């Protein structure tokens, strides 16, 4: 289990233990974190799991693949350099303490 902190749009921070191998999206929806939808179930088909990964640590993550980059174009909230689709980021122990900011809208 790895500790991840999700910061909801209005500022509320929720810290969750996410099972290794689960995605940031699954960690959020299975633990009641508001602000991530994940309508397509994690198949990179909807862009409703858009998040902003802490800029200080985003370089630790494997870079997005083409399908994620394509889908990010559809994100509802502004796309930033630290935008990722949460369903494409798998959690593992080296990510402990990662902070993930959620946008104010997903649709």
């Amino acid at each position, binding site marked *: 289990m790895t500790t991840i902190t999700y910061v909801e749009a209005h500022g509320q921070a929720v810290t969750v233990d996410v099972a290794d191998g689960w995605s940031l999206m699954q960690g959020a929806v299975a633990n009641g974190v508001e602000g991530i939808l*994940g309508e*397509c*179930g*994690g198949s990179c*088909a*909807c862009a409703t799991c858009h998040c902003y990964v802490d800029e200080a640590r985003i370089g630790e993550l494997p870079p997005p693949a083409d399908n994620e980059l394509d889908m990010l174009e559809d994100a509802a909230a502004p796309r930033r350099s630290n935008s990722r689709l949460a369903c494409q980021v798998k959690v593992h122990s080296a990510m402990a303490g990662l902070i993930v900011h959620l946008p104010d809208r997903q649709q």
Partner: protein
Amino acid sequence: MFVFDPYDPIVDSNPFPLYKELRDHYPCYWSEAGKVWVLSRYADVVAAASDWQTYSSLKGNLLAELPSRTGATLGTTDPPRHDRLRALVQHAFTRRNLAGLDEQLREIARTAVRSFEGRERLDFNREFSTEMTMKTLSLIIGLPPTDENHLRRQAMLCVQTDPVVKGKTEEHERAFKWINEFAVSVIEERRARPKDDLISQFSVAEIDGDRLDEREVIMTTTMLIVAGAESMGAFMSLMAMNLADHPEALARCVQNPDLLPDAIEESLRFNTSAQRFKRTLTRDVELHGQRMKAGDAVCLTYGSANRDERQFPDPDRYDLDRKPRGHLGFGSGVHACLGSMMARQVLRVAFEEFHKVFPRYRRAEADLPWMPSTNFRSPTRLELVLE
């Protein structure tokens, strides 16, 4: 002695007590009858669905497989090929594309509902689910008009299994072949005279400049038909069954149709049509004290994970207010259902229109006939009394 046999008719009609036994006492269970390890807890099913490298789909995702299709469909390929194939068809099933079809979907629903006016009884499955799903599919992927009941029947046969032979019979294989041939005829027609639809685009699509393998084109098109016709048809009937069996929830949805999306999500959790899917291990895995070996088949029991009280409190209650985020009614991960947005929209429109004319209904039969299938749960008849 406890036995979980995915071919047993009790698994078709009422798997839920067996699922609970599996979750509580045998969370990593070797089914001798199914020759498959059965995972039943939410946490384990999510972990497996997320780990395609270990839990591969290449050898098929049906517990009783149709070997000619493996490696050539979305459900039977792994990334990276899977992702490229999916990217070619996904655009037709996005919320944005479907939003533009809302009025046409509504017209399909209205036409069907109008044809039931004055009726006191209805086989919802045969008369409405089939009509709605087949016409929707035709609209979205570009199938020509055809005998819808016949096509749905062939699709159902593709996903059925025989409890005696514990696998597919000639009848099932013939049905698959029929749909293949139907797909081939449509593909050829669309290549000769392209229209602005998915099959036209898909039939000439390329990945990195390479034309798709002909088998991929035919098999993927076939599975779009089977999944749309049968998975969605069955799910629509199960939703009707849920509302018929929970009159309070039905009344609330009729009074406030904005509750239908919640009813649909809870239906997906409670008893969706796609209950169990197969994977094949690429390495040894130890889980709950069991050693699963590379090459072993594993059953991801989405239908059980959705009833796991470790994730969903009071799981056997159909609760309109639950809002079950993270449910596995459409699976999870790279293979999560391609048609999920389509199914949500179609069911919402269908029930909105149905409830305008038929706001109260109940089941005519206590016991339903269930399709025999190691993967899917589908009532082959749902007689409703329209009050």
